[in-house]
């Protein structure tokens, strides 16, 4: 030992070691272990201080060995504490039947959900989506769609007029005229939006409702194509087990005109109150575009043919979700909306 070492306060290193090892053993939390570290091996503890000052090789080796042993002990203690803490965490339990935290969850309206189902079905078939104005003229709502002058829909008893010429559209069919005037065929589009009729508010009727209207105009389109398209869409909306029936009907702007029925989902077709004991539920109107409509937009009906169809979204939503009263779709009642 040289002279200078004698100036350092003498430390009993074996006592130091014993004390440090005992402290490591005793530590049971990371905080306690950290205190042990500060006291015995941290920057300002006696051992590192001494190591910084040591000059002779032998003392240095001894102190470094001590340092290694203490580090080793701290490491073991740390490992032991980590394991024991993990054990404590793992011993925790919760009553999993207690409710979870309430996080906000909103709701899309059933009409929106049906609207999207319709949109997706038609997007899949390659159709474009559009919507047109709700305030229409007699020309677009009736004349260009070849409604005869005596058609009941022209009466203010059925239709909501602002004046002699302007009205709230009674169906989305005016979209057919708008798109046919905008661009040449081929056209595959579906138009969705609000329509209006003078109906008293009841469980089954509301004067404002939504329709989707499809139009396909191309070369060589047939009634068979219309049947196939409607079958696809009805099954997309109601399920693939549903059957679809077509009946002849009449609309001013289609010829031949048909109406699709879907087999009743409540009784499966055997007859019940929902389907008025017919086994079938009326879904809307359809048909081959009448040559008069093509004439009205300046298209040659020998070159082009097409089909059109229209259907109510409320009705679709009611049938999909078994909602008996249409007013439930318009009241904004959260007890209803939160179910969807």
């Amino acid at each position, binding site marked *: 030992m040289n002279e200078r070492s004698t100036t350092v306060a003498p430390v009993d290193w074996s006592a130091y070691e014993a004390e440090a090892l005992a402290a490591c053993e005793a530590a049971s939390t990371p905080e306690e272990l950290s205190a042990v570290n500060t006291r015995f091996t941290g920057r300002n503890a006696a051992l590192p201080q001494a190591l910084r000052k040591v000059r002779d090789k032998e003392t240095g080796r001894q102190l470094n060995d001590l340092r290694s042993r203490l580090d080793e002990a701290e490491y073991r203690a740390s490992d032991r504490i980590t394991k024991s803490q993990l054990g404590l965490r793992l011993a925790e339990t919760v009553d999993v039947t207690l409710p979870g935290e309430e996080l*906000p*969850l*909103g*709701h*899309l*309206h059933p*009409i929106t959900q049906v609207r*999207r189902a319709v*949109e997706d079905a*038609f*997007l*899949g*078939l*390659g*159709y*474009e*989506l559009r919507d047109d104005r*709700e*305030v229409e*003229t007699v020309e677009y709502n009736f004349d260009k769609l070849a409604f005869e*002058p*005596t*058609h009941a829909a022209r009466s*203010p*008893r059925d239709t*909501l007029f*602002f004046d002699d010429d*302007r009205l*709230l559209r009674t169906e989305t069919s005016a979209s057919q005229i708008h798109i046919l005037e905008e661009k040449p065929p*081929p056209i*595959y589009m579906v138009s969705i939006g*609000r329509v209006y009729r003078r109906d008293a508010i009841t469980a089954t009727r509301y*004067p*404002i409702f939504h329709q989707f209207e499809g139009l396909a105009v*191309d070369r060589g*389109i*047939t*009634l*068979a*194509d219309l*049947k*196939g398209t409607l079958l696809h869409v009805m099954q997309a909306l109601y399920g693939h087990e549903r059957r679809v*029936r*077509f*009946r*002849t*009907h*009449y609309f001013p702007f289609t*010829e*031949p*005109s*048909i109406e699709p029925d879907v087999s009743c989902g409540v009784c499966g077709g055997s007859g019940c109150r929902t389907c008025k004991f017919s086994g079938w539920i009326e879904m809307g109107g359809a048909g*081959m575009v009448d*040559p008069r409509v093509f004439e009205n937009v300046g298209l040659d009906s020998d070159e082009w*043919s097409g089909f059109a169809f229209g259907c109510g979204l409320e009705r679709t939503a009611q049938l999909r979700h078994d909602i008996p009263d249409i007013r439930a779709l*318009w*009241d*904004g009642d*959260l*007890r209803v909306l939160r179910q969807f």
Partner: protein
Amino acid sequence: MLVPLSWLREYVPVEMPLDELANRFSVSTAVVASIDARGVADGGGNLDLFRVGRVLEAVKHPNADRLQLTTVDVGEGEPRSIVCGAWNFGAGATVAVALPGALLPNGLTLERRKVRGEVSDGMILAEDEVGLGDDHSGIMLLPEREPGTPLTDVLPLTDLVLDVEVTGNRPDLLSVYGIAREVAALYELELAPPPGTDPTPAGDEPVNVEIADLQGCPRYVGRLFRGVNVGESPVWLRARLLAAGMRPISNVVDATNYVMIALGNPLHAFDFSKLHGGRIVVRRAEPGEKLRTLDGLERVLEPTDLMIADADRPVALAGIMGGEETEIGAETTDVLLEAANFEPYGIFRTSERLRLRTEGSNRWEKGVDPHLAPQAAALATQLLVETANASWVGSTDVHGDLAERPVVTFRHERVDGVIGLSVPAEEQDALLGRLGFDRPDSQVVVPTWRARDVTREIDVVEEIARFRLEDVPYTLPERRAMFGTMTRDQQLRRRVEETLAGLGFAETYTPSLRPDEETRWKLSEPISAELTALRTSLLPSLVEAVRRNLDAGATRIALFELARVYLSTEADLPDERPRVAGIIEGPFARGKGVVETLYAALKAEPVFEPAHHDLLHPGKTARTHAGIVGELHPAILDGTWVGFELELEPLFADAREPVTYTDVITYPPVLQDLAFLIDEGVPAGQLAEAVRETDPLVREAAIVEDYRGEGIPPGKKSVLLRVAFQSPERTLSNDDAAALRERIVAATTERFGASLRAN
């Protein structure tokens, strides 16, 4: 159109199961909405309990002044004792009897019971008790028949009625015969000739009819009857009218209604003695002329209205309703029968103007075959002679040139081209033949009763299509040029809906029509006091929806709607703008947070500035350039609520779509917190905006704190901004940051008099 089966069977042999008929008819012709039983229930032997009886004795009930005690032979050997309340019969009368156990149409089952001490072992029937009328003044007296005869042999006790929903293009189906014709074609059955054969005329008196407007009235068959006994129609006729939904009135009126239902041609009968000058003039009304119609209302006529007039005045609204003064009454003996034809549009216009729709106007509006009038006249004449003992003494048939049968060029192959199903030419022709179309060469001659509906090749194609509809295959268009995709707006609309739903809002739909809206777009005839005008804002409807939910006890209310408003402009049509609006409980900051999140979802950055809105708190409302957000005015809802309403078009215009990547990884930002001392009146947002505008290297300046109080002089506030300096090209040094910071201080001092507080 209600079609009694018994009536239909008179014209076509309906033997197939009715469900099968209903389905086939629905698919190919018109929907059969229901098949209803009427009158006495058939089945379970119920009809056997209704018998013809002969009254053997009839005396006053010993214990009741108003009752008769009778014994009635119902063919059982032993007569039955029956107590009866009617007095319009006595011993010897032939009556209708229901026996104990019988189920009556009103749902009651008859029982043997004692009435005031005397046994009543059945019931003598009045017509209302078996659904044959509404007369309950006495029991039915029957022509003499053997007691015990089943009552169904004598009276039309039971029937099935098909309710057919006839479409507007098929007025020919608004008649039993028209339905029969269709059934015959569908099932290849034999159709009886149309009903009605002229009896031998009893005279040859002139009938004076003049048509001044052949366009409005192409044809007028007038027939004169004398010695008419106005009275009740026979029971079979009344039963048919009732089953078809018509109320029996008198034999003369019933005859006209019967013909309308049977053949589809509405008729009218005038009391001839009340027609001035004994003549009929069909003309347009003079301005100011008046007519009291059968419903008792005085109608003021206009020159567009077609009138049936006599020598002096209008006597009927042509095709719509007769006049009161020439109505058939009990004292009528001379009748002028009108079997005319009217043009649809004129009838429609008058019926619209007067808000008067009748069975007649409904048929005329859709167009009635002018060739039908003589047949209708023949059936009516036959009925008047048979049921009212009338003498047919004169007739006339005035008409101009009647429309010929349309001739349509038709190609068999067109059917395949339109419907996508190959139908052999012979089959097409056979089918058209059954429907009354003639088929010379390449043409089709349309029957008169379809002349309005079938005028083009496509209309003939439809005739084939509807009969083969179930065989048309299911295919899809070949789709050589189709590409289905949503537009940017449609995609963003979905994102708006989803973002708000994600924030806990429930989507709602409210009516686009509101009361008392300040707009040009008011309905000329509102639906109701609530639904009168197109809305110019969504928030009021949402406020009402919130109120309804509060009344229902809902909590955590948050509603949104995505819909249009309709703004008045100089243009001919309103400006229809899609908007999104929402209401949620909470302070301004919550609503603003929703709007900010909505913008963030669209990758857009809103700028807020103070604003005013009638529904919102004057000091807690802001606008962005897409709309407004603010606390609801406290007078509108209890508690603290916040609402917003944004136009989608400017919102979507701001959306950065698709997003362009910014490198914020390679050269990390230098962050500094800067506390500014600034006048209280300066909005913090303006300060932050000014800081951001100082230099492109100032990437962000976020407001962290707005502090006033201790340590801050009065009239001032401290705004703490967290500023990020960042360059996409290099790591900024402390010197760069210091320089930027100095420029920020200089700019804000100059603009707001702001000074930097020591941190």
